[in-house]
């Protein structure tokens, strides 16, 4: 085998298992809500907060429930992050910036192009200016938003993953949660809990990147998008450093190969508490590319080695990021009984590396549309109209081709991106077509193996998974759906794709260490399909 196309080995979305007629048996408890929000991330919580406030102002009572698969708020949230505060200001007009859960304003910043030994300072691209923005931990942001939501009477249910969409004909009626306490073979045990059905007049899907139910709904209702969604994988570490850092840093170039898109970020939450990570587009061409291993390599660069010397890695994690931008948005993000928010819809701007404020604002607009829908029967498509008329659509349109240009490689892409910036988005006139990541052919080459003479080891994947706080039950049934026969080369490819060491190539086949999974969704993009498992499984991020 000299190349593989991952699509040949990826099972289709198990739609028949994801869409369930409301009333189907198998549920324990059934709960009725006015509005159900799936996912307690920034989008879901902003939606809940705005809805609760609208109801309060209107002196009506809305029964709002937010489902979150992590055991506690924030434990599955991961981002850089540098946050644009505008959505916070909209949601909390009475608060000052200093009241918000941010760590520090961005003071200085620098962009570097790296080679193995050196760095070249680049002028900060206009799309990446961060002055006026704040460095934050998304975990802390989510916990803060969660407290605000609960104070407003929103019910936040942590430890309850939504596993299936409940539907009535073509309308979404709610969700069914995943059962808990299944044994290794998937059978219920006495101490476990049955799935629960939560039905609501409107369901907001705010599952984050590569949301399962969002995918299922789009496919089921055949909602098209101009381009398929494409993704990057970010692997991130949080370090307590001996040396202080006083600026936000972004790097391009080494150690990424020329035909991979991405870069790194280094953000000081405090002078001696540094978040750093490497983000790589999943349309890379080398089957042996391993983002986690590249990050370990990156830390050997003189720039970072000096910063991290004597320090300690306190957390590790990973997550994918939807990168397709404007053309990958579903044609509509609303339907009968349902709206799609945040990363699940694809509201991320790659050139500025921003998504949190778009997520929150999408939640705010959705809340307004939902409120009118409940009050007057106004159509939920009002949500689409609000988003399309807003800065969200404007921003994404302006950079609509920037990421896509890089499919032609770093240098060519760089030139095109520069042209796009100079022309304010008018260049090019048309749209770049993108293939879904899973359809991109990968070639086999020696690649980067940890421990080889070229690559220092850094943190091993299993030690990294430990630092993500992952303490998933070892006897949990596997939640991943691979193809029936996976050749060893493809198993090796999966092993490189997954930052958490879930996949291993052994004895001519694929071994799956499912409890390692930290829900980054890279597998769902390129390999075996991801499904939710019992609540509380996965990572327990604290300040990621």
């Amino acid at each position, binding site marked *: 085998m000299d190349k593989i196309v991952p699509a040949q080995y990826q099972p289709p979305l198990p739609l028949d298992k994801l869409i369930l007629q409301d009333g189907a048996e198998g549920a324990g408890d059934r709960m009725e809500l006015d509005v159900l929000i799936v996912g307690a991330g920034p989008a879901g919580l902003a939606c809940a907060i705005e809805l609760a406030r609208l109801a309060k102002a209107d002196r009506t009572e809305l029964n709002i429930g937010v489902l979150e698969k992590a055991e506690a708020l924030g434990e599955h949230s991961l981002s850089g992050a540098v946050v644009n505060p505008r959505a916070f200001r909209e949601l909390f007009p009475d608060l000052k910036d200093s009241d918000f859960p941010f760590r520090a304003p961005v003071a200085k910043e620098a962009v570097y192009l790296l080679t193995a030994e050196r760095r070249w300072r680049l002028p900060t691209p206009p799309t990446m200016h961060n002055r006026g923005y704040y460095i934050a931990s998304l975990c802390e942001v989510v916990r803060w938003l969660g407290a605000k939501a609960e104070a407003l009477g929103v019910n936040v249910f942590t430890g309850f993953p939504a596993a299936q969409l409940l539907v009535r004909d073509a309308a979404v009626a709610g969700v069914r949660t995943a059962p808990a306490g299944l044994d290794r073979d998937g059978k219920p045990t006495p101490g476990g809990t049955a799935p629960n059905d939560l039905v609501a007049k409107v369901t907001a899907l705010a599952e984050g990147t590569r949301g399962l139910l969002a995918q299922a709904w789009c496919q089921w209702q055949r909602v098209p998008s101009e381009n398929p969604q494409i993704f990057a994988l970010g692997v991130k570490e949080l370090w307590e450093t001996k040396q202080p850092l006083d600026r936000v840093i972004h790097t391009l170039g080494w150690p990424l190969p020329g035909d991979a898109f991405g870069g790194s970020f280094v953000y000081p939450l405090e002078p001696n508490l540094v978040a750093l990570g490497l983000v790589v587009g999943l349309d890379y061409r080398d089957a042996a590319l391993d983002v986690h291993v590249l990050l370990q390599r990156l830390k050997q660069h003189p720039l970072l080695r000096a910063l991290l010397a004597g320090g300690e890695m306190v957390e590790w994690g990973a997550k994918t990021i939807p990168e397709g931008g404007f053309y990958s948005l579903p044609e509509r993000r609303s339907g009968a009984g349902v709206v799609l928010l945040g990363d699940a819809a694809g509201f991320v701007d790659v050139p500025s590396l921003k998504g949190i404020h778009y997520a929150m604002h999408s939640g705010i607009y959705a809340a307004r549309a939902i409120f009118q829908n409940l009050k007057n029967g106004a159509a939920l498509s009002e949500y689409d109209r609000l988003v399309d008329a807003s800065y969200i659509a404007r921003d994404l349109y302006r950079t609509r081709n920037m990421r896509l240009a890089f499919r032609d490689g770093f240098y060519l892409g760089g030139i095109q991106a520069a042209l796009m910036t100079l022309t304010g988005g008018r260049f090019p006139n048309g749209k770049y077509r993108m293939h879904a990541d899973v359809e991109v052919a990968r070639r086999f080459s020696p690649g980067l193996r940890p421990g080889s003479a070229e690559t220092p080891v850094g943190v091993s994947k299993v030690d990294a998974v430990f630092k993500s706080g992952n303490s998933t039950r070892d006897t949990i049934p596997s939640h991943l759906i691979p193809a029936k026969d996976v050749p060893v080369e493809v198993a090796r490819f999966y092993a490189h794709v997954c930052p958490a060491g879930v996949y291993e190539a052994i004895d001519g086949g694929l071994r799956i260490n499912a*409890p390692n999974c930290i829900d980054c969704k890279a597998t769902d993009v390129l390999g075996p399909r991801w499904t939710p498992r019992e609540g509380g499984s996965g990572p327990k991020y604290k300040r990621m």
Partner: protein
Amino acid sequence: MTTLAVLEQRDGVLRKISHEVVTAAQRLGGAVEAVVCAAGVVQGADQAAKFGADKIVTLTNPAFAKYAPEACAQALAERAKLGGYRCIVFAASATGKDLAPRVAAKLGVSVAADLTDLATDGAGLVVTRPVYAGKALLKMKVMSQPAVLSLRPNVFTPVERSKAGAAETVAVNVPAGRVMVREIKAAPAGTLDVAEAQVIISGGRGLREPANFKVLEELARAFGGQAAVGASRAVVDAGWRAHADQVGQTGKTVSPSLYIAVGISGAIQHLAGMRTSKVIVAINKDKDAPIFKVADYGVVGDLFEIVPKLTEEIRKLHG
């Protein structure tokens, strides 16, 4: 200033942990009076003299044939109230953890419990105890008179410092109490949960075949009920051992005092959570096996020779 060292007996025989109590009591300076509640003569109580007891007092009452928490607590508290004791020291054994607080409450104070160090300095009595599952040490001043202390087992290694050990027997008249030990029954074999065990002996592919795990089971039995046999993921997946025996893969903090990895080459790296084990021992025939980097103590060689020898030595200790 006298320290009252509370000894422990079971079925009329002194438990070895009592030697630690006397040793620690010695450290406080002053006289040491050892005391034990029993129905009659306690075999081995005189050993307390070897470790520093000036006096060995046996408080007798028929109720003390078995552990009688209320009777024992009352007898000890009354003895303590006779006065003159600077400290009262217990072992933080299963019984000690039950008894010490009862006595302390009767004296109107709490126990400085589960100590790993104690010292008297100019400032008074200063003690150290592990907290947060051993992730930190807490140093405290104990200001009560008397101070009631309990000692973490296996820390205060008995030191011989012979004293007179004048024996005295006092019959005490205390009610038997409302809480009665009916019997001590044997722990059912093999039910020790790997996650709970103080000692875990884990086997990997180096065991060569499932039947060979009995070598590890023998070693576990030598620890007298405190040890469980765990298995690496490879071995569980191969069907050699039950899923329940699998030692964590995703870093759940399983923290036995002693983790012995037998025939596991580097799969220990899959057990990053084992890093919080107090002590890791590795036995492997490959001296370059990555396991040795993680272990505190390693023995290179044939496990089928090493493990039985270790079993023999452990049996001698626990006998």
